[in-house]
């Protein structure tokens, strides 16, 4: 399937319908990945914003750093340490949620502690790992790379994409009700605890699936910025979700294509997040202008 898509793009380039850069297989892979990452993170991000858990996505993203280091140390392939990556991030998210239910420490403070731990452990292990692998690979883990999107990454992303779409279709409304009014949700026979665990688990899985394109440091930002931008300019939940998905997808695609087109030596992660930030600034201006119009 992937070969067929590559061939279609190659034909389009050969017929001068697309620029030369689309003949590179790695770019097409990155483009397909970004077309899945965008909607995934954009849609989940709205729930992150409603739950006010932006900090959680950052913490889970940073835990991926540790997962990669552990994977390399345990002998997993350097470019695809999936088992350690998924295992550590999922464990990190579940332990965080478990501790939350058993302590009176405020959730944001608890996430801060876990984030610091994950970052410190990841940094310590990464320094150790850097002795054995090319330092450039470490940089790719931190900030993502357009070169890293292999067929296996696209398969993982596709599985996550289908999983999230299915869950969103069946349980999306329940998830928002749990976030907005847990008492009412509980009364409506919705398991608040299961939803809370499911949410952190999903954040962990999606973050890990996207980490090779956006990077461990910045993946949390794409969960936050599009939804925060959409929140500024929309008036209901539907437009917020759709707007967040649109901004996130646009940022992901633009972040892959613009540096390639302009031949800029910028990693994919920072490029995607800078595009998302540009969208945020625009929505901020639009929001301000609307405010002034409303007051005039």
């Amino acid at each position, binding site marked *: 399937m992937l070969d067929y898509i590559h061939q279609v793009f190659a034909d389009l380039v050969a017929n001068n319908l697309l620029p030369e850069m689309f003949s590179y297989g790695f770019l097409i892979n990155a483009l397909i990945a970004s077309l899945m990452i965008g909607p995934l993170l954009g849609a989940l991000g709205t729930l992150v914003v409603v739950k006010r858990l932006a900090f959680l996505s950052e913490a889970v993203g940073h835990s991926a750093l540790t997962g990669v280091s552990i994977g390399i140390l345990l002998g997993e392939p350097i470019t695809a340490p999936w088992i350690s990556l998924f295992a550590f991030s999922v464990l990190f998210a579940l332990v965080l949620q478990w501790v939350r239910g058993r302590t009176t420490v405020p959730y944001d403070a608890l996430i801060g502690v876990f984030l610091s731990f994950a970052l410190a452990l990841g940094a310590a292990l990464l320094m150790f790992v850097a002795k054995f692998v090319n330092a450039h690979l470490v940089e790719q883990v931190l900030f993502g790379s357009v070169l890293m999107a292999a067929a296996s990454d696209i398969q993982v992303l596709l599985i996550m994409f289908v999983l999230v779409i299915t869950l969103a279709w069946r349980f999306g*409304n329940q998830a928002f009700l749990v976030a*907005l009014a847990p008492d009412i949700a509980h009364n409506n026979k919705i398991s608040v605890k299961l939803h809370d665990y499911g949410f952190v688990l999903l954040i962990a899985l999606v973050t890990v699936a996207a980490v090779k394109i956006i990077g461990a440091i910045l993946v949390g930002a794409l969960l936050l910025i599009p939804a925060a931008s959409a929140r500024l300019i929309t*008036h*209901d*939940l539907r*437009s917020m979700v759709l707007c967040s998905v649109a901004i996130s997808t646009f940022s992901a695609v633009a972040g892959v294509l613009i540096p390639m087109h302009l031949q800029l030596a910028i990693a994919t992660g920072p490029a995607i997040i800078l595009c998302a930030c540009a969208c945020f600034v625009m929505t901020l201006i639009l929001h301000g202008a609307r405010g002034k119009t409303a007051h005039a």
Partner: protein
Amino acid sequence: MKANLAAVGITGPAIEINNLGIQLGKITLLSAVSTTMSAGLWHGIVGPNGGGKSTLLKSIAGLMPHSGSIAMLWSNTKAPIIGYMPQLAPFEQSLPISVLDYLRLNSQNRPVWLSFKKRSEINDVVELLAIKTLLNNRVGTLSMGERQRVLLACALLQKPSLLLLDEPLAGIDKAGQEKILAVLTDFKKQGGTIVMVEHNWQVLQQYCDQAYFIDGGLKKSGNPTEVLQQQLTEQSLEQAQQRSLLLANNQTDEARTA
């Protein structure tokens, strides 16, 4: 008992509370509450602030861990569904969640972001509570009274047989109160059971069949007027005792000064 209830059109449950106790850390919120709330009646929970009224309601709704037991005796005619209206639902003003979104989240499985038509049951409840003009407003921008009506709409959308309402009339003007009370009266006429926390004795006397005075435990229960009378008598006795104590203290002080 179940067959009899169904025969007279009562769909709401009776609630049997046996030796209910609720502890939060070392603080006892409620202790030794035992009572039976009959099916198809309107029950009012009353008492001072911090007395445990909302705690009792939450425990009936299954939202509070407790000792003792709470049993719901449902008739067979309808699925056992409870509509719960919390006292406070914190809505953030800047979140783009409209009233229609909120009602949809409560009443359908189809994702809100893929819904383009209002469902008929939402239309019915919206008409009933006169909140049609609020549908596109953000829930965070609603007044207290408007929020109460939206929360009641959410409870009614469940098509319940039992309504658990925590101060549903708080912050609502006279006309709004009458609207809500009329809706609840209809609900009771259709056989539903209502348990409502309420401070206003006038409302309790006029609408409720039973009143329960809660202050750390169940102090009195029965006909609202009788409960009020007992409460007033106790209060006047307490006041008289306090007055006589104060008088006695003053006389002692005067005697010492002399």
